[in-house]
């Protein structure tokens, strides 16, 4: 018995075999185990492939099949391959754009019939005149139509711009000039001195022009010689001194505090300067009391001090003006701490302003708090906190530990945030991605110290920074106090 080959079996499966052959195949299959297995293999394989290929057929959303799509595609096809062009078809019917015979080309018959001006130049003046007259006679009485025809043919005239015409004429004249310079100039001047009267007028004109030029030149010379136009100085005696302004004191350069004074980190913990500076400033105090200064919190900082800090309550129980206790220093250092006024490391003792003098709290002189001198807080002199002399106004707190990184609940709440705008260049270059910035969200609701963590080209980073500057937020709060924190901002740029 001869087994069937796979082609026959395949055809049999698809029902493509003629009837008699199909019957004989069936007959064979009934007997032959091997061929039955074979056809099973082919069948399951075919089914699997059918299932897989069924996945390939497009879903209705993926492909549009209608006459409109095909028609549009045909139009595009025609345009992109420049076939069946309308122009070409018209050209077959012998109507073609006509270019006027400026360059002695043969004139198309249609144009010469309608415009006598369009005759070739070789035909000579007489011929042209004759043709024009003939045209005029033949067109007499049907003027409107002729005009209409001329109008309709006007689009055929070469559309020459002023610049192009100027260029063309210049080239023509330059050629003339190069060929015969003397004659060219002669021709130019020929019309100017043809009669004695014209010659006289020309001479008079030239003379007038020369005199006018001479006058102008002389004026300039004279002006130069007498320094005309330079303002005279006002005599000194007309000036009166109204007030002598005090010369502003130059800002003293900050000095370092004692070596053991704690140093601030990362600037912004309360300081108002953008860049971290060394901790400066100091406090003072005392009211000549025997007991050491009491423990407590420091009052707010201010640029002036009316009511120095003190431990005991004010003697005037009902003041008309209430001045809060202040230390002199940068208001940014204020922290609104709750509790009675006193030194941070003061004694746990009955209320005392300390053994110092001057009205403050502490061991030394001045109206401040602490061991130093002056109206600040701490061990140094002057305003602000810390160990050294107060520096011009910025500085940083002596016990600064740097800016915290936002985490958990301690993070600013962004109330308004802009979308960063695209730049035109970036759009054209299809730049997408994100810009990551890191910034300090100050306790005053402003953004400081913006750093670029990840940038993008074509000005997108700048746009992101611009958008970041417009952010509004509520500062982070820790233990009831607003604090500055560092946080990252991400700006996404996506084209779609």
């Amino acid at each position, binding site marked *: 018995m001869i087994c069937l080959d796979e*082609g026959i079996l395949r055809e049999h499966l698809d029902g493509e075999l003629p009837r008699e052959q199909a019957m004989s195949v069936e007959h064979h299959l009934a007997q032959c185990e091997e061929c039955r297995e074979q056809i099973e293999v082919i069948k399951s394989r075919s089914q699997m*492939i059918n299932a897989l*290929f069924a996945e390939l057929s497009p879903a209705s959303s993926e492909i549009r*099949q209608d006459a409109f799509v095909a028609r549009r595609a045909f139009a595009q096809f025609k345009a992109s391959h420049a076939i069946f062009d309308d122009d070409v078809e018209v050209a077959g019917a012998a109507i073609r754009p006509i270019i006027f015979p400026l360059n002695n080309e043969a004139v198309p018959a249609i144009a010469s019939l309608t415009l006598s001006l369009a005759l070739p130049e070789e035909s000579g003046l007489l011929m042209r005149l004759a043709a024009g007259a003939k045209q005029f006679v033949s067109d007499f009485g049907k003027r409107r139509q002729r005009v209409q025809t001329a109008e309709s043919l006007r689009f055929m005239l070469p559309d020459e711009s002023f610049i192009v015409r100027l260029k063309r004429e210049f080239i023509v004249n330059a050629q003339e000039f190069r060929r015969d310079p003397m004659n060219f100039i002669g021709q130019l001047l020929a019309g100017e001195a043809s009669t004695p009267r014209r010659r006289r007028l020309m001479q008079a004109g030239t003379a007038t022009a020369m005199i006018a030029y001479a006058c102008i030149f002389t004026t300039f010379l004279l002006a130069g010689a007498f320094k005309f136009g330079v303002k005279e100085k006002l005599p000194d005696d007309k000036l009166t001194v109204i007030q002598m302004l005090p010369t502003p004191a130059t800002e003293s350069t900050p000095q370092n505090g004692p070596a053991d004074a704690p140093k601030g980190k990362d600037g912004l913990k309360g300081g108002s300067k953008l860049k971290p500076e060394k901790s400066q400033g100091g406090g003072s105090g005392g009211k000549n009391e025997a007991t050491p200064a009491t423990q407590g919190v420091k009052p707010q900082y201010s640029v002036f001090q009316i009511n120095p800090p003190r431990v005991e309550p004010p003697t005037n129980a009902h003041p008309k003006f209430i001045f809060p206790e202040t230390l002199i220093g940068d208001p940014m250092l204020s922290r609104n701490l709750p509790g009675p006024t006193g030194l941070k490391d003061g004694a746990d003792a009955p209320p005392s302003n300390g053994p110092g003098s001057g009205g403050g709290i502490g061991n030394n002189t001045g109206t401040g708090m602490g061991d130093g001198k002056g109206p600040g807080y701490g061990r140094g002199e002057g305003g602000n906190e810390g160990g050294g002399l107060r520096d011009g106004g910025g500085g940083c707190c002596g016990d600064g530990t740097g800016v915290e990184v936002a985490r958990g609940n301690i993070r600013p709440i962004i109330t308004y945030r802009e979308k960063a705008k695209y730049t035109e260049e970036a759009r054209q270059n299809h730049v997408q991605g994100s810009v990551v910035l890191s910034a300090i969200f100050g306790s005053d609701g402003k953004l400081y110290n913006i750093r670029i963590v990840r940038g993008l080209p074509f000005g997108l980073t700048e746009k992101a920074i611009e958008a970041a500057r417009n952010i509004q937020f509520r500062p982070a709060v820790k233990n009831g106090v607003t604090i500055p924190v560092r946080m990252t901002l991400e700006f996404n740029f996506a084209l779609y």
Partner: protein
Amino acid sequence: MIATQERLGERISAESQNGSGREVWTEAVFERVFLQHYSRIVAVLFRVVGDRAQAEELAGDVFWKAYRKAPHPDSPLEQNNLGGWLYRVATRVGIDALRAVARRKRYEQEAGAANYESVEASPNSDPLADVLREEKRRRVREALAIMKPARAQLLILRQSGLSYQELAQTLGVKPGSIGTLLARAEAEFEKHYRELYGHEEGL
């Protein structure tokens, strides 16, 4: 300009001498052919390449080839075989594009470049189902791309719904050999598919 005119004149004269030499397409006839076959050609190409924009572009190429080379539908020799001709060219063009893509991807993978498949999400459909379907399609195409082009072509044409008779006519083979060719093509496809993905699927 002059050259164009001359060529144009040639064509018009060729058209007027009806019957001698190759026929020239007129717009009306070509447009009829185009509109008649365009949608199905795009659909076939979409099956092969899986990208509508690419399918449409390739369809344009197919018709351009038809414009230049195909037998004129009215010419007596190739009666009514223009459709078959278009399908043959379209599948071949599609398979070539598929193989080019597969080749490029291989290089990219060897070079360590990222290989993301873009799935176009269609409205009101399940994104997960889309992704899965796209993955299945990708596998089929991958297997097609490494098959012998002629066999891949046969499979695609058969799966596009052509009968044995039409297949034989389109591919220019004897109708009796289609069964054998088809069986071999299917066997080869299964072999490649199993080599690629057999370990993942029960099949």
